[in-house]
């Protein structure tokens, strides 16, 4: 197939359609307005349903309904809107419904501003909504990756009957890059649990309420085993030039892409610098990172926030004594030169 020139919103939308998504509900918010706008004409062309909801709360609950009815369903938003979706994400997880949620992270707290940020790392990886649940979180660093990860996210959501999050940012949302799309329609999995009318079978119900003593605990243990399977099978990461170096940069998403540039500049100057990039923020690549950390004397964590993934790096390191942090918490994006300066300071 020919490659297409798309921005991050359009690429994710095209990937969703290629993956068989036939339902999207969303509410406008910068920097992802192109998403609902694009879906409003593209999805009906593919026989799908586009809905502009009255709020993000409504949008995620519409997605809940579409998922309950067996459709591959998607919603997208940016940070303040994602906060409103947390109720629905918790219910999706509790009810074991598959859905994909894309967050084009902008800077907070509160209304913050509309510039790229990674400040929703905790919210994405620690649940976000109420209750003891987990969601796979994929962090793309390019337009091609947001395409690939969105496509993958629908399979993961169905495989585990669980919501899957894509934590992207305002920069990937608006970057214009070539994308190699996937071919053809997928054969979608059968969903015997879906609510389609009980013709020829017993009625199905979808619920997260279990009042009989002990039943909720059994349900939650079942969820726990599912989360363990995800931890075993779905960890994704990349490492660049991690052998024999002195300093390891750990960074994710768009920030890692800038850090890679800084790493290359550093190496041209003879500094032994490597890069480790978690792709799934949950499940986090603790083991893989640990084995890299064991070989370096210094670690520099770079994020567009006040140091959130930093906690996971520390957990992975099991007490590495020289972990440094460089972050930009207010929507500012560092240049490779600025990161290089930080590298040299350490």
């Amino acid at each position, binding site marked *: 197939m020919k490659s297409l020139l798309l921005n991050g919103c359009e690429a994710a939308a095209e990937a969703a359609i290629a993956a068989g998504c036939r339902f999207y509900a969303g509410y406008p918010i910068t920097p992802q307005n192109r998403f609902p706008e694009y879906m409003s004409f593209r999805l009906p062309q593919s026989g799908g349903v586009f809905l502009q909801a*009255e709020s993000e709360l409504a949008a995620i609950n519409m997605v*809940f*309904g579409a998922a309950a009815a067996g459709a591959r369903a998607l919603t997208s938003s940016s940070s303040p809107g994602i906060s409103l979706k947390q109720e629905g994400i918790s219910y999706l997880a509790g009810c074991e419904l598959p859905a994909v949620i894309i967050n084009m992270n902008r800077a907070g707290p509160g209304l913050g501003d509309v510039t790229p940020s990674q400040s929703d790392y905790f919210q994405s990886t620690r649940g976000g909504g109420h209750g003891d649940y987990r969601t796979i979180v994929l962090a793309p660093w390019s337009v091609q990756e947001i395409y690939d990860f969105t496509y993958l996210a629908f399979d993961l959501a169905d495989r585990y009957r669980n919501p899957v999050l894509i934590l992207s940012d305002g920069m990937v949302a608006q970057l214009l890059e070539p994308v190699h799309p996937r071919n053809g329609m997928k054969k979608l999995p059968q969903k015997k649990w879906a609510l389609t009318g009980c013709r020829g079978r017993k009625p199905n119900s979808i619920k997260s309420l279990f009042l009989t003593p002990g039943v909720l605990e059994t349900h939650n243990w079942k969820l726990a085993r599912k989360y363990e399977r995800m931890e075993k099978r779905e960890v994704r990461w990349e490492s660049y030039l991690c052998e024999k170096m002195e300093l390891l940069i750990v960074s994710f998403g768009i920030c890692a892409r800038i850090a890679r540039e800084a790493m290359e500049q550093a190496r041209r100057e003879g500094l032994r610098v490597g890069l480790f990039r978690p792709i799934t923020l949950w499940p986090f690549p603790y083991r893989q990172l640990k084995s890299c950390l064991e070989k370096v004397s210094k670690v520099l964590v770079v994020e567009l926030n006040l140091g959130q993934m930093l906690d996971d790096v520390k957990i992975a390191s099991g007490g590495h004594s020289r972990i440094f942090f460089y972050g930009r918490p207010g929507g500012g994006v560092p240049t490779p030169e600025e990161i290089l300066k930080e590298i040299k300071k350490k």
Partner: protein
Amino acid sequence: MKALFTRPRSLTSNVMIYCPGCGHGLVHRLVAEVIDELGLRERTIGVAPVGCAVLAYNYWNFDVTEAAHGRPPAVATGIKRVLPDRLVFTYQGDGDLAAIGTAEIIHAAARGEKISVIFVNNAVYGMTRGQMAPTTPLGLKTTTTPSGRDPDLHGYPIRVCELLTSLEGVCYLERVAVDSVPGILKARQAIRKTFTYQLENRGFSLVELLCSCPTNWKMTPSQAMKWIGQEMVKWFPPGVYKDVDSTNQG
């Protein structure tokens, strides 16, 4: 032997755990009877609320989903848009529909979503022990209005049918007092109409049923039934508020 009265196919044999004299059990049964009558059991998807009727999926013998508090209209929208030829309805209490879910109900109505809404107005929050609801009449004592609902402090009740009449997407709105045999029969007819209109793709419709909550009203079941007819109807006059088929709108 000829059976004169049986359990509708659309009801399970599970014992309902509602309080004696509660309106929910009655309305569940009416919904089930109408679905049987229309032969729709295998094409129906119900959306249960958060409220006393949260366990509705235990009682209805067709596909039912839970929804977060107040969100049934959004959930039903998702289902109906994906499966437009199914009968999709929400079943909601007054806290669910007229407080936390006000935005969802108004916008589903405004979009003319082809869903039916069975709205059980019992003037209080039943499940959480009888606090003030958006439909609590002035003066009524509840667990959060210990001296009675005072408009200066607590505002005024919301009349949902009246509120929705102006929306073009709505094809049918009726309020019925479920306080007597004629009231029950009328409620049944109204439920039949909302389902029929949905199947005819006419738009959004809602039936508001004034129902008893003897437990939180601190009344006997028969006192509660009387209170609906004597007091509740003053605040919530029964009638047809909108019917696209009729020129004679109440």
